[in-house]
């Protein structure tokens, strides 16, 4: 663990990788550190944003070094099932890339459990990481200017669902009718860090 400076209100904790981020984040959700108002996990780091009136950065650093990360990918204990229509425009490309039939792409996507590692890019966009061996799917050479909401995509080691229409370079393999970000729901974001995800083929 490396603790890096991030101004007078925050600290950036750098870890070895995604599993360590998930373990530390799960521990910090379970037992929040005093004076820490926001915890932002990412691919290799966890940002701790503090309330300077409530704590001092050296105390937060000492406290985070004492935290025992949760082992494995237990996450936060919630599971979300997302029915997916596997009719994405890039499904044939991904299949060609792997030298398999498109059905096999669907089988692999539905055949493994996923965990939301972190959010980013847009509110409610969860970067989902698969159980087992990491995936590696190149982004599209030319990003789309408009990706419809609900699109299910692959990029690098991640799978994700576009919460709303936006530009995007992920390979689109399908779409879900489930709103992954809904301001009229509490919580608005379905795919929060630590949530377990299971993609199923919609009938």
């Amino acid at each position: 663990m490396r603790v890096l400076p991030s101004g007078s209100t925050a600290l950036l904790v750098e870890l070895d990788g995604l599993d360590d981020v998930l373990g530390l984040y799960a521990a910090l959700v379970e037992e929040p550190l005093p004076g820490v108002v926001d915890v932002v996990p990412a691919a290799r780091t966890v940002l701790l944003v503090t309330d300077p009136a409530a704590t001092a950065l050296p105390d937060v650093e000492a406290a985070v070094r004492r935290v025992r990360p949760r082992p494995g990918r237990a996450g936060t204990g919630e599971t979300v099932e997302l029915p997916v229509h596997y009719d994405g425009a890039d499904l044939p490309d991904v299949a060609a890339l792997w030298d398999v039939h498109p059905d096999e792409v669907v089988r692999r996507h539905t055949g493994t459990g996923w965990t939301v590692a972190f959010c980013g890019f847009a509110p409610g966009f969860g970067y989902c990481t698969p159980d087992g061996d990491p995936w590696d799917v190149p982004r599209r050479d030319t990003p789309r200017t408009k990706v419809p909401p609900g699109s299910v995509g692959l990029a690098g080691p991640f799978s994700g669902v576009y919460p709303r229409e936006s530009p995007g370079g992920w390979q689109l393999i399908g779409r879900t009718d489930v709103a992954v970000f809904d301001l009229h729901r509490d919580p608005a974001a379905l795919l929060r860090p630590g949530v377990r995800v299971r993609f199923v083929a919609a009938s």
Partner: protein
Amino acid sequence: MTRAVTVLAPGPLTTVQDRGRPGQGALGVGRSGAADRAAAALANRLLGNDPDAALLEVTLGGLVLRAEADLLVVTTGARCAGAVAHNAPVPLPAGRELRLGMPATGLRTYVSLRGGLEVEPVLGSRSTDLLSGLGPPVVSAGDVLPVGPAAELLPGVDLAPLPDPPGGEVTVRVSPGPRRDWFGDDAWTALTARPWEVTAESNRVGVRLAGEPLRRETEGELPSEGMVRGALQVPPSGLPVLFLADAPVTGGYPVIGYVEDADVDRCAQLRPGQSLRLRA
């Protein structure tokens, strides 16, 4: 009569702001909120408003609004020509207009009404986040903005004597950021020795700076990582961006330094062409 104001003209950009959406970074939801937090807080304090009360953030003046009831108003931050209520609350009787001209110096003026603006909150805040699109829509002509009931007693302050935002060079304190080691000592010296020019591409997301590009020593891609207001991020152009209220939650370019949190508010008042000095 309903407590409300009607917007007759919004000027170049007027948004509703409060103290933002803290604690939701893990969902990809940024903090947002008033760009000059100190000026916004002062406006609410002068009116005895709740610190979380929503107000208007006016960019480069131009706002015209009409009171639909007997209200109390104050402006803070950039002093607009014709602003009678600057740092000093005054009554705005029903039917009376408040007209803000161009500020001589500074960029953002806060218009607070006693009781606060009661537009619909989104995820716990009435702030408009221009990056993510969350929050109330940008204020436009014809909007009728409801004003809440007066909560606390008036503090009884006639005037907060404060200097106006400066028009010349501004100096703020900077400390090394998480990826300071991606840059050589020459880059750090260049960052902190010479003044930077504020460009016209600046907005609520960040102040974009022009000057001699900073050279990176570590090549390769940085996995996105969390950052907060005050971060000085260096994109491939080598020209730093100083992030403000609507900063993204995570960024994929190295953050070389951070502007001291208390100094970031002053940066929100910088106008294009102004000079910014980052003192280590």
